[in-house]
């Protein structure tokens, strides 16, 4: 069965303290992996798409990487405004979402 697991469930960071979020997956045919950011009470906002192992994408303090079994979202020197839930989704013939990592960044 296709499955997507995100860890940790929650992460508390001090402002400037870099860290990584993990998205591991077991799927029969990966067509792509998506990262979204979701603020409380709002819809997910698209961040990145990765299609093949070794691929990397960057946006401001965020960098997403992909291997054959997992993806990492690296957050460098985070700020309080980076606080949100980060979702990953794997594209097989439909999107399968993880349950997200809730990130809190404190000043």
């Amino acid at each position: 069965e296709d499955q997507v697991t995100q860890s940790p469930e929650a992460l508390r960071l001090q402002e400037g303290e870099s860290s990584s979020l993990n998205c591991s997956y077991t799927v029969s045919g990966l067509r792509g992996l998506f990262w979204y950011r979701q603020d409380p009470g709002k819809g997910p906002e698209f961040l990145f798409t990765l299609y093949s192992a070794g691929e990397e994408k960057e946006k401001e303090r965020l960098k997403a990487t992909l291997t054959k079994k997992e993806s990492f979202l690296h957050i460098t020197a985070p700020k309080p405004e980076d606080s949100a839930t980060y979702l990953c989704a794997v594209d097989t013939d439909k999107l399968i979402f993880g349950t997200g990592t809730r990130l809190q960044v404190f000043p």
Partner: protein
Amino acid sequence: DVKVTQSSRYLVKRTGEKVFLECVQDMDHENMFWYRQDPGLGLRLIYFSYDVKMKEKGDIPEGYSVSREKKERFSLILESASTNQTSMYLCASSGPGTSRNTQYFGPGTRLTVL
């Protein structure tokens, strides 16, 4: 920029009522989706549509129906609302082809069924 709008941000209904949730996208996307999001369960696909008047069941279609009469509009219908349908409902759209294209989400409708 892609814009997906949903008719209501918050909705309160009573058990047994018929509920309509509307979604409109302005990017001429072929594909539209309805999800529900519950704590600890993530996003689950209810229905999707690849074309006007076309619909496909997702993972949890029971108790729901959909309508797509125009390309830009996708409606989710709760025929007889029940308390276990209290949830956040999210609409999304994507471009040509299958779901391999990026899905863009609306702001969500928080539905409470009393």
